[in-house]
C-alpha cells in the first residue's frame, strides 16, 4: 500500500517525529511504500543538517535520511514546506542565495517545496497519517 505521512513537530521536543519514523520504517519493512513524508509547522526542523545530538542519543535527522525515501527519478520525497521552513530559518542553497543569506542548513536527503505537495500526497496515497502534538 502507498502511504503518505505528515509530521507537524520538530525533533527532540516532541515524540511525533520519532513515532512517524518508526511507523515509516515498519511500513517499508513490511513491503509498503512511503510515497512522501511532508514536514509542516515545526516539523521542518527535522531537516536541519546542523543537528548535533549527543552521541548516546538517536539522530532524528539521520534516521529520516536513512530511509532513503525518493521518487522514481531519485528526488527526495522527504518534503519540507517552504512557507513553514523560511519562517523558521530552514533554508536550502537556492533560498539562501535568493534571500542573500550566507549558509544553508537543509539536509540533502530532504527537499523544500510548496503546500501543494501535501494535498497531492493526500490525493495520490492510499492512506495519509498525521503525526503531531
Amino acid at each position, binding site marked *: *500500500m502507498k*502511504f503518505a505521512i505528515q509530521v*507537524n513537530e520538530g525533533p527532540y521536543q516532541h*515524540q*511525533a517525529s520519532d*513515532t512517524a519514523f*518508526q*511507523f515509516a*520504517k*515498519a*511500513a517499508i*519493512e*513490511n513491503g*509498503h511504500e512511503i510515497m512522501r513524508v511532508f514536514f509542516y509547522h515545526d516539523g521542518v526542523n527535522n531537516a536541519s543538517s546542523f543537528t548535533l545530538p549527543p552521541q548516546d542519543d538517536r539522530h532524528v535527522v539521520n534516521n529520516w535520511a536513512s530511509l532513503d525515501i525518493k521518487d522514481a527519478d531519485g528526488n527526495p520525497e522527504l518534503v519540507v514546506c517552504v512557507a513553514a521552513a523560511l519562517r523558521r530559518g530552514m533554508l536550502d542553497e537556492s533560498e539562501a542565495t535568493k534571500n542573500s543569506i550566507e549558509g544553508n542548513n537543509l539536509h540533502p536527503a530532504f527537499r523544500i517545496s510548496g503546500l501543494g505537495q501535501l494535498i497531492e500526497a493526500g490525493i495520490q496515497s492510499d*492512506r*495519509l*497519517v*498525521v*503525526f*503531531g*502534538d
Partner: protein
Amino acid sequence: MLHTVNKSSFERNSLQSCINIIDDTSVILFIEDGVINAANNSKSSMIADLAAQGRVFALQGDVEARGISSKLADNIKLVDYAGFVDLVVEHGTAVSWV
C-alpha cells in the same frame, strides 16, 4: 477508520473528543502519551465499552517505555509499529487527535 490518540486524558480532552464522534466500526489506537489512557485508572470507564468490543489498541513500545505494562485496563490489545501499520491498512482513513 483508525483514530490515533496521543494525549493522556489527565492532560487534554483528545480522547473524549474522539469518543464523541467515533462511529460503530472504527477503532482507537493509543500512541505516545495516549497510552496512559490504556492504564487502569480513574478514567478507564471512558474506554471500557469500546475495549470490551475489541476496538482499543495501544502501542506496545510506548506502554513499556512508560512502565505501565502491568497496569493495563481490561481488553486492551497491544500492537508494535508493524501492527500500527496493519491497523492503518485495515481501517481506512486515519484520524489523528493531535
